[in-house]
């Protein structure tokens, strides 16, 4: 789960990670009121969406008067912001964060992520703040410092020293401030079961202070149960409604832009099915894992979600029955076609436990648009042919 910048900064503040002062607004008038409350003579109006690259997309603007704050908020609220991370459809801006201006002398980068190979969190930092870190990693990898921190021992002095020397910070006061900053970020990463924290840019002000000018946080979904206060930060308008709907039924669904709907048990086989369709010259319309215990209800829900997509020209149901017996799944499919109006060809491949019985059940059901696939390759080929109207 991801959260907004303003929410990340609330968590930062709790841990003593310095940020500019800011207040969230839903309307232009509220934005103006917030600016007045913050005081000063420069404000930043920032669109709140779950995607990076907001500045380049026109979602972050500088205002030099309260009236300008109101004007910019009017412009940004309700706009569909397109960035390199939103996809071409963009994201609707429903909130703006009004923040005091900062006097920046330097822009740095700091993030904490899990290093899967080292099996511990890693702090990444760079002097190249404000840039896309992937670009930095590609063009000047030597400008990225990586410091693994073993949680068994925690953040130690030497981690901090590696960081400040790596960033070329020589002033002792500044060194101490940066070490305190990084330690706090590491601590809040661990405490909150974060999956990633990215601060880009991390700025140095004219006073030699370090501040998180931006903040991005994602959390381990499996750990949200023990962090109700973070679960409360969930913004469902940022999530795909079909994916959410599917997850309520224990289905894992992701829409793609092809023509063949897929319903599969198991994530690996679901991806493998998409790959096979692609290999056979077709295009998958979605990823859908019905989970280990597919039954009539979940299959029916799967059909319903797949068929919401108007591009779907055929559906490939690919189930490898393990503990779940194929004859029961076959009955589930027949039930499902009765509950949901399935108006495209459905290719069904059932293999594993009791597969022959299942084939018999499907044959005897006499459903006109149901085609049986013998194995994965045969089923995918038939689905590709059906989608092409062959």
């Amino acid at each position, binding site marked *: 789960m991801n959260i907004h910048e303003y929410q990340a900064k609330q968590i930062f503040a709790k841990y003593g990670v310095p940020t500019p002062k800011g207040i969230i607004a839903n309307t232009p008038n509220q934005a103006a009121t917030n600016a007045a409350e913050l005081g000063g003579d420069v404000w930043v109006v920032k669109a709140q969406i779950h995607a990076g690259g907001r500045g380049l997309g026109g979602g972050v603007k500088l205002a030099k008067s309260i009236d300008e704050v109101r004007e910019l908020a009017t412009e940004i609220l309700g706009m569909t912001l397109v960035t390199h991370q939103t996809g071409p459809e963009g994201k609707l801006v429903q909130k703006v964060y009004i923040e005091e201006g900062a006097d920046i002398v330097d822009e740095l980068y700091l993030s904490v992520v899990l290093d899967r*190979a080292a099996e511990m969190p890693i702090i990444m930092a760079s002097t190249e703040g404000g840039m896309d870190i992937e670009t930095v990693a590609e063009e000047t990898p030597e400008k990225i410092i990586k410091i693994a921190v073993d949680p068994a021992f925690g953040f130690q002095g030497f981690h901090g020293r590696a960081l400040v020397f790596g960033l070329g910070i020589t002033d002792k006061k500044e060194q101490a401030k940066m070490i305190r900053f990084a330690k706090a970020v590491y601590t809040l990463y661990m405490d909150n079961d974060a999956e990633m924290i990215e601060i880009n840019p991390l700025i140095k002000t004219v006073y030699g202070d370090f501040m998180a000018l931006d903040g991005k946080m994602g959390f381990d979904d*499996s750990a949200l149960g023990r962090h109700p206060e973070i679960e409360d930060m969930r913004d469902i308008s940022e999530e795909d409604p079909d994916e959410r709907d599917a997850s309520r039924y224990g289905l894992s669904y992701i829409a793609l832009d092809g023509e063949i709907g897929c319903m599969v048990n198991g*994530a690996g086989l679901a991806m493998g099915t998409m790959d096979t369709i692609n290999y056979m010259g077709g295009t998958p319309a979605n990823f859908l894992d019905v989970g280990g215990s597919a039954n009539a209800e979940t299959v029916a829900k799967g059909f319903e979600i797949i068929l919401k997509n108007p591009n779907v020209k055929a559906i490939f149901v690919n189930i490898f029955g393990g503990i779940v017996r194929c004859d029961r799944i076959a009955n589930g499919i027949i039930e499902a076609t009765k509950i949901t109006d399935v108006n495209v060809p459905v290719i069904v491949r059932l293999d594993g436990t009791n597969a022959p019985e299942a084939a018999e059940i499907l044959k005897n059901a006499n459903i006109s648009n149901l085609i049986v696939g013998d194995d994965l390759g045969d089923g995918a080929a038939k689905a590709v042919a059906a989608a092409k109207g062959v």
Partner: protein
Amino acid sequence: MSILVNKDTKVIVQGFTGKEGSFHAEQCLAYGTQIVGGVTPNKGGQEHLGKPVFNTVAEAVVTTGATVSMIFVPPAFVADAVMEAAVSGIELAVIITEGAPVRDMQKAKACATKNGMMTIGPNCPGVITAEECKIGIMPGAIFKKGNVGLISKSGTLTYEGANQVCNEGYGITTAVGIGGDPIIGLSYKQLLQMFEEDPETEAIVMIGEIGGDLEIQAATYIEENISKPVVAFIAGQTAPAGKRMGHAGAIISGSAGTAKEKMDALEAAGVKVVVSPAEIGKAVKEILG
């Protein structure tokens, strides 16, 4: 021969009396696995499925001589269970539970490593030595005895791959589902080495997916250390970047962890890489003749 487990392996079940634990322990017993008991706190002294129940893993190990634990406890308690197994003399923990927090597994794995215990999973189908010992949730009937070792992140692709291998007239020595979480126990590298050393295994099928770089590490390892032929499939060639494809670890971050980079690395290491899982059986046949 086989790797990790065989007909003599003594197994306990943590989360023995729960719904999942009971169901699958019963299936394993029916397969012939030597389940010698189980652990459920506060149910010590009872009998379940004809086997003794213990309050602690330590008691179970002392009484039964078990060396392997199959773990079904709920996600919030799984790290605790793994660490208890690690300090109680268990040599291999097979963690079936799905949805364990990453931070917990990080801790549990560090504890396991410190105590010299191997782990498989979490969020995996388990391990099976064909016609001898099944420790997990896989359908036992599809695994016929033979000479192909199988390693896979995905459960259903394990079944798909094993089924194709057996349909071509070959069989399986041992199949290991390693799971698709960001932090897992035994990985390709260690298992490839075990299969290399197993005289009965003649070829290895390796099934990976997008996310992380375990498959890339495996490619390097294969090039330098593995003499037996390897067939590989990497799931997720058509997966979009930045989306979590079912498994917690199956995500392309930025431009890293794509199927293509993994397939290229494996191909360069001399592995026979297939573009569809439907081709796994045929590829094994081509190699073994």
